[in-house]
């Protein structure tokens, strides 16, 4: 799960994009996830962006009476979503309704359209600044050179992979004099807009649901040559990340033999609701985490 931004301390975590970085539990069951979250969450005097959290309620039972689930059409009907993925998510939502939840359609048009471009300005910009410290002087890798400058250059060249280098360049550019307003500044404004759009949806719904990713896992290295195609795998998780909202991924079925993730997103600090719904579906859907070929 990805908790609400600021509910888990980032102290000790290597920073990539500070305003987006979040530490989240990964566990075999939703209940374990909730339990781990209850331990790691809360205000930390060493991270001034952290906040207090309401007491964590360990989920129990499968009754979803009174829970209102919004289904954003842009995140469930967009082309690019694999038919098998869409089918598994629809089945999971039907199960939720059976357990007493009320389903309703909603819309997050701007969040889905602008979330991704916005992310690819904010994240690289912050990364370009956060990664400046890996210069080979005080810790980590050092590749010697004729002088100080050459040592920095060689160290960074050897230490950073292609993707970090790409993001450092992009981010440095986005923050440069004359481009800040058009890029980073604009992205921050769009972020506020995305937050507001989500807030409006949460006036009518307790949480929203969609696939976690448009496709199931692709083969290792299959999209390395086409970064844009790879970035698109994140199109459904990024809008809520930009808004600092919590998201829980629960496996809900298979598509072409590979697991499909159901994503549940709630308003800030609504982790207890996500755990409750995630647990109920997990118990009712009977998803077997052991791959078919190994059973």
């Amino acid at each position, binding site marked *: 799960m990805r908790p609400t931004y600021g509910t888990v301390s*980032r*102290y*000790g*975590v*290597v*920073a990539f*994009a*500070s*305003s987006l970085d979040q530490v989240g539990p990964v566990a075999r069951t939703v209940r374990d996830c909730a339990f781990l979250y209850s331990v790691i969450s809360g205000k930390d*005097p*060493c*991270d*001034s*962006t952290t906040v207090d959290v309401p007491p964590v309620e360990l989920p129990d039972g499968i009754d979803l009476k009174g829970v209102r689930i919004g289904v954003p059409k842009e995140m469930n009907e967009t082309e690019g979503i694999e038919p098998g993925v869409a089918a598994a998510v629809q089945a999971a939502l039907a199960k939720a309704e059976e357990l007493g939840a009320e389903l309703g359609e909603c819309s997050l048009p701007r969040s889905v359209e602008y979330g991704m471009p916005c992310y690819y300005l904010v994240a690289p*910009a*912050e990364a*370009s*600044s956060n990664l*400046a*410290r*890996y*210069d080979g*002087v*005080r*810790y*980590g890798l050092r590749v010697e050179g004729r002088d*100080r400058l050459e040592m920095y250059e060689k160290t960074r060249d050897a230490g950073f992979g292609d993707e970090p280098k790409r993001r450092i360049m992009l981010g*440095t550019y986005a*923050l*440069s*004099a004359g481009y*800040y307003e058009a890029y*980073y500044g604009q992205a*921050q404004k769009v972020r506020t807009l995305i937050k507001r759009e989500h807030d409006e949806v949460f006036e009518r719904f307790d949480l929203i649901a969609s696939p976690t990713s448009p496709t199931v896992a692709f083969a290792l290295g299959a999209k390395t040559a086409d970064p844009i195609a790879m970035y698109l795998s994140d199109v459904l998780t990024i809008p809520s990340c930009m808004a600092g909202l919590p998201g829980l991924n629960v496996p809900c079925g298979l598509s072409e033999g590979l697991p499909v993730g159901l994503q549940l997103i709630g308003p800030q600090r609504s982790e207890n609701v996500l755990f409750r719904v995630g647990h109920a579906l997990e118990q009712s859907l009977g998803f077997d985490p052991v791959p078919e070929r190994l059973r």
Partner: protein
Amino acid sequence: MAEWEAVVGLEVHVHLKTRTKMFCRCALEYGAHENTRTCPVCLAFPGALPVPNAKAIEHTIKLGLALECEIAEHAVFARKNYFYPDLPKGYQISQYEKPLCGRGRFLLPTAGGDEEIGIERAHLEEDAAKTVHAGGETGRTIGAEYSLVDFNRGGTPLLEIVSRPDIRSADQALRYLRLLRQTIVELGISDAEMEKGTMRADVNVSVRERGENGFRPRWELKNMNSFTFIGRGIEAAVRQQVAAYEAGKTLEQSTYDYDPDLDRLTVHRSKEEADDYRYFPEPDLVPVDPPRELVERLRGELPKLPAARIRRIAKELSVAAADELVSTGNDHKAQLLAERGVDWQTAANVAMNEPDFLDANAAAIAAIVKARDTLTREAYDGAFAAARSVSIDAAEYLAQIAVSDTGELDPVIESILAANPQQVETYRGGKEGVLGFFVGQVMKETGGKADPKVVNELLREKLKA
């Protein structure tokens, strides 16, 4: 020929007096062994995060209130990105678009009324570490064999006060700096000592013809750490710029160094090489929204400020004398003596020139100062020597009356004159300065107990003959 005027703006940096650094809990200690006051935060280890120092924020607000600044309701820390060995994160946490203190003003009392220097902003940031260039022949960057970095200073809270370009002369710049320094010291927020590096200034200078609107390109003198050189640097900049314009040249914005040996500015780097700091809001920190109650409490804690005291004392002395008294922090002593019947002129002289004394000794010192013409030098100096640290009894010193009895002094003087016929000739030849020599001899002979005023009179009379 055109009449030129200087246009000067100052950026003053002072280290804030706090127990710990700006964003970590390392102790601030001058003179501690190198790199022993460091931690993962101020060494920029991966995963370390800054936590702002609340005291430093209070100090900044206090200064802002003293300079009549608008105190922000929502201030934001920003990253200033640049890469240098003394900056381990690769960025300095500073404030950019939303500083803690906005527009304000600082008044310099003068004989012709107050001069107003606008304040553009005052913001809080962290200082860089200290680089020491070692080896090589010059001990400077160029030619050094290697550089050492002391991170003890890295992360020290630094307050930057930016003036508007309202200053019109080197003299005014120095008066601004001295009074601002005194204000900072009295607020208790910094020692602001240039010699110790806890205060430094960037000076921006341009010139324009009197009556001209707008500003011409400015020269920036960075990291100036002496009042004398700031004054001379401004004068040199004005001289060189006026000479250039009068020779028909155009100038561009550049950073300069002041060379005290040549009394000239030499170009450090031009604008084309200027850094692009890529400022953006610091995502590791939440904005600072100072509560109104805090601001009002700090306003209530403000002491009576130097400028106000200069205006009051100027009613007794000249503005320049009052300014000097206050800017050196000596007006409190003068005030104590004046309140106890010492005339202001004498009180000011004593405060400026004699050793400090305990407030509790003010009445005794006032009595001794008033009687100083009749006291022995020994008694007078002895009283000040003691009054600095222990409570004194005036009567003990007032009893040591100087010898003013001519019957007692006459024979002493006669024998001294007789023993120094050559100096007597010199005096009578018109060099009256030699009188001091005779006074000294008499004081020596009487063990400092003679009344110098009477000795002077007697000597003049006898030498006339």
